[in-house]
C-alpha cells in the first residue's frame, strides 16, 4: 500500500468532477431553492420555511408519501420473497439451467417504458389477454385505470417484474457461495432439511440479503417512470409517489420552491437509509475481521 500524491488525486478527478458538478452542486442549489419562491423564468424570492409549510398542509404530499412507503415495501419484500423461494429451488439444481437463467435475466434489459406498454396491453380490460382470462374465470375487473389501489398494485407488479433479476442474482449467488462442507457436517450431526436451512443457509446469505434489501430500498425510492407512464398520478392525484409529486409541483403547478422542498425531504430520507447502510456494512466488516 502506497501513499498518494498529486498524480493520484488527478486520477480521481474525472469521477469526482462528475459527481460534484452534476449531483453535489445542484443538490445544494436545490436546498437554497427550497427556501425561495420562483417558477421557471421568474425571479426568486426568499420565503423561509413557507414551502415546507405548504407541503405539510398539502394532502397530495401525504398521499404521495404514504403511497411511496407502501409501494416500496411491497416491491422490496415481494422481490426478496420470490428471489428467496426461487433461489432455494435453483441451488438444488434445475433442468436447462443456462436457458432458464437467461430468461429470468431478460427483464433486466427491458426499458421501463416498454415494460409499462406490455403490462398495460396485457391488462387492458377490453383487449388484454390477462384481463380477459380474469373475466372468463368470473373474477372482478382489474380496474387499474380508475381504481387508485389497483393502479398502485399494477405499479408494484411492473416494478417487481423489472427488478426481480437484480435481487434474484444477488440472493442466488450468495446461496451458491455457502460452502457445501457445512451442509455435509450439519447432515452428519443429524440436522433436518429445515434445520440446515435455518442454521446453515440463512446465516450464510444474511449479508447478501441485507445488501439487496438496502440497494433496492434506495433505488425503488426513486420510482417515477412506472407511475408517470401508467397513471401520471391520477385519478385525482391518488396514485402519486414522491418523485411524481415533486415533478408535478415544479413543472405542472410551476412551484419550483415546493418541488425543491420535496426534493430535500427525499434527500433526508434517502440519507437516513444510506447511513443505515454504511453502518450495517461497517458492523458486518468488523464481525468478519473478528
Amino acid at each position: 500500500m502506497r501513499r498518494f500524491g498529486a498524480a493520484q488525486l488527478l486520477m480521481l478527478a474525472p469521477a469526482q468532477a462528475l459527481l460534484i458538478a452534476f449531483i453535489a452542486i445542484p443538490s445544494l442549489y436545490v436546498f437554497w431553492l427550497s427556501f425561495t419562491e420562483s417558477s421557471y423564468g421568474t425571479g426568486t424570492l426568499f420565503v423561509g420555511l413557507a414551502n415546507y409549510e405548504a407541503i405539510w398542509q398539502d394532502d397530495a404530499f401525504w398521499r404521495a408519501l404514504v403511497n411511496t412507503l407502501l409501494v416500496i415495501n411491497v416491491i422490496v419484500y415481494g422481490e426478496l420473497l420470490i428471489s428467496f423461494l426461487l433461489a432455494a429451488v435453483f441451488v438444488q439444481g434445475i433442468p436447462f439451467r443456462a436457458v432458464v437463467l437467461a430468461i429470468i435475466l431478460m427483464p433486466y434489459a427491458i426499458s421501463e417504458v416498454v415494460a409499462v406498454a406490455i403490462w398495460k396491453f396485457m391488462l387492458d380490460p377490453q383487449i388484454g389477454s390477462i384481463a380477459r382470462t380474469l373475466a372468463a374465470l368470473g373474477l372482478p375487473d382489474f380496474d387499474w385505470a380508475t381504481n387508485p389501489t389497483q393502479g398502485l398494485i399494477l405499479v408494484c407488479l411492473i416494478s417487481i417484474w423489472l427488478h426481480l433479476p437484480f435481487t434474484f442474482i444477488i440472493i442466488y449467488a450468495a446461496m451458491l457461495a455457502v460452502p457445501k462442507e457445512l451442509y455435509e457436517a450439519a447432515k452428519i450431526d443429524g440436522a433436518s432439511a429445515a434445520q440446515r436451512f435455518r442454521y446453515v443457509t440463512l446465516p450464510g446469505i444474511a449479508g447478501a440479503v441485507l445488501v439487496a434489501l438496502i440497494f433496492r430500498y434506495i433505488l425503488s425510492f426513486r420510482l417515477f417512470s412506472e407511475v408517470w407512464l401508467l397513471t401520471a398520478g391520477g385519478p385525482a392525484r391518488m396514485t402519486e409517489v414522491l418523485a411524481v409529486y415533486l415533478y408535478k409541483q415544479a413543472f405542472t403547478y410551476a412551484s419550483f420552491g415546493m418541488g425543491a422542498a420535496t426534493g430535500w425531504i427525499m434527500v433526508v430520507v434517502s440519507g437516513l437509509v444510506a447511513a443505515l447502510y454504511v453502518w450495517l456494512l461497517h458492523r458486518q466488516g468488523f464481525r468478519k475481521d473478528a
Partner: protein
Amino acid sequence: MREGLPMRLLRAATVLFVVLWSGAPVALMVLSSFKPTTEIFAYPPALIFAPTLEHYRTLFEKWPDFLGTLFNSAAVAILSTLVTVAASVLAGYVYSRYRGTAIGASALFMVAIRLLPPIVIILPLFPATSLLQLNDTWAILVMLYATFFVSIGSMILKAYIDGIPTELDDAARIDGAGEMQTLLRIIVPLAAPGMVAAAVFVFVYAWNEYLFAFVFTTTDAKTAPIVISEMMGSLTGVDWGALFAAATVQLVPVTLFVIALQRFLVAGLTAGSVKG
C-alpha cells in the same frame, strides 16, 4: 440425491412459473409485432399465425423520427459507457492501491452522494442547461448517465483490481514504468472483465433511461424510449402493432447483449454489491 415425485413436480412448476413470468410478456410483444392487426387482439393469443411486416412499415412511415432516436440512444449509450469506464478505472485503481485520508474521504463521498434521487437534481439543472445551451444534446445525457454510474463502476473496478497482485505493478515500476504506463499496460488488461461488467451496467441503463431523456431532450437528442412513450400516449388511440414493432427493435439488441454478457453482469452484481 433421492427425492420424491411431489418434490420434483414442485420444482418443475416453480421453474415453469418463473420462465412464464419473466419471458411471456417479452415473447408476447415480439410475436405480436409480426401479427396482422386482427390477430394481435385475438383471444386467446395465437402462437401460430401468418407473419407480416406491416407494423414495421407503419412504424417507419408514421414515426419517421424513430430511426434517428435509435441512433441517438446508441450514441449516448456508447459514449456514456466510455466515459464511465474510463473514469472508473482511474478511480478504482487509486482506491485499490493507495491509502490516505483524502482517498478514504473521496470514496465515502462517492458512495454517499450517489444515493441522492436523480429527480432532485433536475430542478436546478433544467434552467442551468438551458442557459449553457446543453438542453437537447447528447452531451447532457452522457454526463448525467456517467455521473450516476461512476460510483458503482469505481467500486466494481476496485474489487477487480484488488484481485490483481501488487507484485505485478511493483515489478513494472522497478523496470521504470510510470503510473499511467503501469495502469495501461499491467492493470487494464487484467481488469478487463471488471471493465466489461461496469460497461454492461451503464450501457443498459443509458439505452433504456426515461426520466432524464424526458426532461432534457425535445427533438435533436431524443432517445428511442421517449418515442415509444409518445406512441403509448397517442391521442388518436394507440397503434399497438406499430408500438410493439418499435419496442421489439428497441429491446432485442440490448436483450441479446445482456444474455451474451450475463456472466459479467452476475460478477459485477456480486462484486459491486458485496464490496461496494
